[in-house]
């Protein structure tokens, strides 16, 4: 099993690097996980992560990309924003990475 050492203890990770126990998540741990992937989380990243966490809490699933893009457009009041902006923040896969640094399991669907 993978683990991530942070704040004096090991945190178990799944095969994709997401926390096994969501209850261990904190913003500080999210920051450290992202840093280990070479991403320094800023305010823009955190807006996306919080949106994804809120969506997961409300609906039991992460948001679709089109939902995330629409929300980001409204938040920034920029109607021309597209997925490129999200990939600039999270280059591998915006929703998946936001789940990872937000203490959520990886989406296991094929969408």
């Amino acid at each position, binding site marked *: 099993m993978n683990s991530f050492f942070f704040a004096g203890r090991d945190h178990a990770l799944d095969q994709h690097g997401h926390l096994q126990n969501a209850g261990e998540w904190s913003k500080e741990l999210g920051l450290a996980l992202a840093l280990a992937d070479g991403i320094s989380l800023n305010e823009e990243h955190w807006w996306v992560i919080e949106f994804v966490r809120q969506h997961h809490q*409300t609906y039991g*699933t992460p948001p679709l990309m089109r939902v995330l893009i629409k929300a980001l457009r409204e938040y920034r009041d920029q109607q021309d924003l597209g997925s490129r902006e999200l990939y600039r923040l999270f280059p591998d896969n915006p929703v998946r990475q936001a789940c990872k640094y937000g203490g959520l399991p990886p989406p296991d*669907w094929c969408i």
Partner: protein
Amino acid sequence: MESEYSAPRFSNRFDTVILVRTAPDELAGESVPEEITSRHGTAPLSVFLHGNGVAWARPEYAPAWQELAGEGGPVLQVCQAAWRRRFGDQQPVLFALSSLIQFWHQAAKARQLVSLRGSCSAVENCGFVMEIETAPDGFSQRELLEMALAAASLELDLIVVFAGPGLDQILGQSAVGWRQLVDHELAPIYWLGDKALARELMPGAVWLDPAARDKRYADRRVLKLRV
């Protein structure tokens, strides 16, 4: 834009896309491969296993599909997420791992969309109706929601209609996942049944007057899901 599943992998245009959500042990000895052969002949077909139907891709059922799987036969696909939830890292036999995104790509281009143990309709170049008359347990319930979300992610013109036992899915806590379709304007949700149920069902779900049903369904492919 969406994900690794977005790009069409099977570029063929199929005459018919067949959705199979029923497991072999739920069919009382009936053979899906035989039924496909007898009903659909030699037209270009895609067979997509989803929900409990993914069990058809297990090795013990390979002999039943062998004849169909040859050159010129249907393209056989199994939903990757539904397969992995049930069978982990095992490999399906004769079926290629695929995705709901691929399913909808193909369905959008096909002349006919068939739900085995459901029913079908054939209208080209139009929207879709997912008419859900089932409230399965476990993975299968969530996978119906994922089917609708996959269509929404492609911005297909989809409406979702619950009826009969399917109404349980938009009742109380069961409705949590479906609410995102309405809240984010991904697809409208309608329901058929006694209008008096309205207060108990998910806010935002709209009662469909049976008299207006044909009009609402006009020019759409209707995918009736009974399992």
